[in-house]
């Protein structure tokens, strides 16, 4: 199997990128919520530690999601509006990854307390990944990117069985 097929998730039957992005989006959002709670006075029981784990877990997921995301983007035809949208999606997510990487380094210096610089990268990183993620949802649900990519043969057979006119197979 070619590398691009591997990254696009042909072996799984679905795209890989949308499955992997649960990790950074969910974990980073929770890290930000923990930071806010920490600033608001919840310091007992290790919220700072848990936030650190969330940031690291999210970063690992984001690194894994990047190459499959790029492979999905490559399969979009250049003249489609989704191509440009995909670029914005990529830029926002790369910016989020950079901010969360800085945030992770910032956390190594402090024991558990959330300092203002940590809160800033945490909040900005969350806003960026939410914006990037929203564009990603539009790519799938508004533009249909990767929809029926691997199931179209099955749907074609059903369409033929149910009397539809279909293009000749190429």
């Amino acid at each position, binding site marked *: 199997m070619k590398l691009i097929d591997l990254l696009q998730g042909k072996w*799984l*039957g*679905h*795209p890989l990128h*949308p*499955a992997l*992005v*649960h*990790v*950074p*989006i*969910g*974990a980073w*959002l*929770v890290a930000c919520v923990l930071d806010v709670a920490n600033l608001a006075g919840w310091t007992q*029981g*290790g*919220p700072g*530690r*848990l936030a650190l*784990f*969330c940031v690291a*877990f*999210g970063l690992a*997921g984001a690194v894994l999601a990047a190459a499959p995301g790029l492979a999905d983007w490559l399969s979009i035809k250049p003249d489609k509006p989704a191509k440009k949208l995909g670029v914005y999606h990529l830029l926002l997510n790369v910016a989020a990854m950079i901010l969360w990487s800085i945030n992770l380094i910032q956390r190594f210096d402090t024991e558990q307390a959330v300092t203002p610089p940590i809160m800033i990268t945490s909040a900005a990183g969350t806003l960026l990944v939410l914006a990037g*993620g*929203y564009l990603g*949802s*539009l790519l*799938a*649900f*508004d*533009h*249909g990117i*990767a*929809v*029926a*990519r*691997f*199931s*179209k043969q*099955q*749907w*074609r057979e*059903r*369409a033929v*069985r*149910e*009397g*539809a*006119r*279909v*293009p000749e197979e190429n």
Partner: protein
Amino acid sequence: MAAAKNLLLGKPFRSPLHPALVHVPIALLPLGLLLDLGSWVCPLNELYLVRGAFLCLAAGLLTGLLAGLVGFVDYSEIRRDHPAKKTATLHMVLNLVALALYGASLAARWNHLEAMRTPLLAVVVSGVATLILAYSGYLGGHLVYSDGVAVGRHRRKPLLPRETIVAPRGRGVFVPVADAAALAEGATLRVKAGDTAIVIARTEVRVHAVQEYCPHRYGPLSEGTLRGCEIVCPWHNSKFDVRSGKVTGGPAKVDLRTFRAEERNGEIWVETPDA
């Protein structure tokens, strides 16, 4: 009522809510398991692994239940006879089983939050729950990327057809399929005449019938959007004139089959195909 449902279906946001909400439980619940395993590999109190895992499970369970409620609205919008309905049912049942197991794991660790390691039973139950969640999440991906559930749904104001209407038998004859009142302007009906799947759409002027499957990637035109005399495929925005079946835009290259349809005495009639 329809407005509230359209909100929960995520139409104002141009994408469904359930797939967005599940990010949190899908990230937190496996992270909880990782922290549990960490507490066995590296049992140090200052890492707060046991407490961290507890928080992950508790928050994951709550957000998972919330995502489930919204997901049920998506579930109710899948046509009864849609091939994805069974997958969606399994997706829902397995998610409920996984959440119940996480709840059991939460209970099993409740009295051991000061321990160095998460109790073994709680870790094992959480591990099983995570395997089930992974498979169920895979099914969720299948619903979107193989079956196209919720794709392009937001472009359409009317709710989706509840079921496929089975037309009376006959070849090359007009048969009644529904009350005219069952089809509002801009809405669609999905009809099966023999083996042939047909979508009936009402424009400002009259009713029209074309084939159900888009000739691009075979998306369901009965779930598409009607704009004037143009029907838009929900998946990749192929556009067709419902009067002639001709492609008017988008990636499709082949025109639709059309079928004669008309209103007679308050009923919608369609001419069944010859073969």
